[in-house]
């Protein structure tokens, strides 16, 4: 059973093979119709990809596609070219960290505010003895303060 070239074929198209490897692959292509058809298809695909220019998938799509691949597996050069540059990744990480810090700060402040509630004010609960105070004020004033409605019998009110 003849073994076909597989991934070595795409490496040949991308020019990534050494001289010895390239000789072996070319020798195989000379005798294998299937691999020649696949090599032609790959070249056509590569030309069309180049014809598309710099248009590429968005960052989010790229990262999702990369996540589908095997961890530590060999990545094609075309895929590595779509990874975000290092400064952008750092900005992304810093943004995430800042958002985390802000969220934690707000949460902590809210917790502190909630914990500070419910404190009973210092001292006893006091209802001002306004009727007694009114008498003392009247004794002091020598004038006529308005009669509070809460002081019963505090004067004859004339309509």
């Amino acid at each position, binding site marked *: 059973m003849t073994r076909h070239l597989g991934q070595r074929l795409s490496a040949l198209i991308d020019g990534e093979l050494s001289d010895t490897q390239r000789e072996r692959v070319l020798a195989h292509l000379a005798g294998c119709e299937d691999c020649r058809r696949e090599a032609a298809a790959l070249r056509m695909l590569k030309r069309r990809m180049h014809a598309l220019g710099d248009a590429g998938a968005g960052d989010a799509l790229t990262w999702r596609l990369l996540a589908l691949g095997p961890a530590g597996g060999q990545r094609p050069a075309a895929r590595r070219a779509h990874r975000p540059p290092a400064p952008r990744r750092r900005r992304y990480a810093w943004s995430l960290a800042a958002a985390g810090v802000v969220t934690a700060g707000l949460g902590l402040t809210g917790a502190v*505010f909630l914990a*500070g509630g419910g404190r009973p004010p210092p001292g006893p609960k*006091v209802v001002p*003895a306004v009727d007694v105070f009114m008498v003392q004020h009247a004794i002091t004033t020598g004038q006529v303060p308005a009669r509070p409605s809460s002081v019963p019998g505090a004067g004859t009110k*004339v309509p």
Partner: protein
Amino acid sequence: MQTRSRPAASMAPGTDPAALRVITTAVLVGLVASGVALASGLGLLAGGAAAPRPWTGRAPANGPAQAAGLRLLREAAQACRSLPYQGVELAWWGRGSRAGGDTSVVQVWHRPGGRALTQEPGAPVLTQPPAASPSASGQHQPVAPLGTSGPNPDGAGALGMSTRLVSLLAANYEVTVAGRGQVAGRPARIITVRRPGGGVAAWFWLDSATSLPLRKEMFDARSHLISSVAFTEVSIGPGAVSGEPAATASAWRTTLAPGQLARLRASGWPLPGPLPGDLTLIAAKESTTPAGPVVDLDYSDGLSVVSIFVQRGYLPTPLHGWSQVALAGHKVYASDPDELCFAWAARGFVYTLIAAAPQQTVGQVVVALPHDDGPGWLARLKHGLQRMLSWVRP
């Protein structure tokens, strides 16, 4: 085609709109900050209200007219102490531009050396003890709560005058003799009391024969009448007083000397000295209640009288029988429709303010006293942090 904007690089620094906005904002902020700093330095802001205020009006006149007016008022103060008299007073207290107000009728008895007894017809009596009676023993006199048929606080010495109040009048107002009139069928001389700015603050009608005050009207800073008290009938002289009832209430006897006030302040009691509106502390008393001691501070400028009752504690919420109102930018409780009695709690103390004064003066006093309106959330955060730290390090 014209472009709508020019490239920033081609603009001179002084013509860039963004730069101009920044410069304008900086200048405005600087002006505001300078104004605030200047006002703080002059003590014009609320926080500096307890500090001595600059004299903003012109000094009271010291001419012959002022001397004659003051002489008559001093005679009136002496007459209030020494003359026996009995009569009926009609009193009205309003709020300047507001219609309505309260009107009361009280009967008044006075014997030489004492203070006036006042009583509404058919009710028990409020007494005013002699001025020389306060005890320095330091004992607390229990507060006697008033029942539903309690004494009448309205008419307590409504026309009373003391030498201390006359001295304050002389310091803060211009007093002149305005002419002659008649009250309750008796000839009277009219005294005009003016503010340093020139507006009328009060009129007194003094009995021509005895100098006893027969009528008094007070005005606010906008010359609106805020109170009027007058005898509708009066008898003066030996034999004029008869049938006076027994007293059922008296002033708190524990007066606080300056040294005692200083000790209370040192222990954390917020007891202000002079207040805005030329209000001078004229009396300080203390009593006890089931909730603890109460300090009564009385202030006057010679005409207005403001009493502030301070006690430790906090107000219940809601405070039944009171309504919450906004006064001079602060939330306080008012006990009556005319809003001359206010209460609020701040920093562990409850303040109850009762005023016989123009509303503007009351607002100034309220602003000058402590409030918890501002830093409440900061205090809550501080307390919350302390509580959470105690969880970590009990």
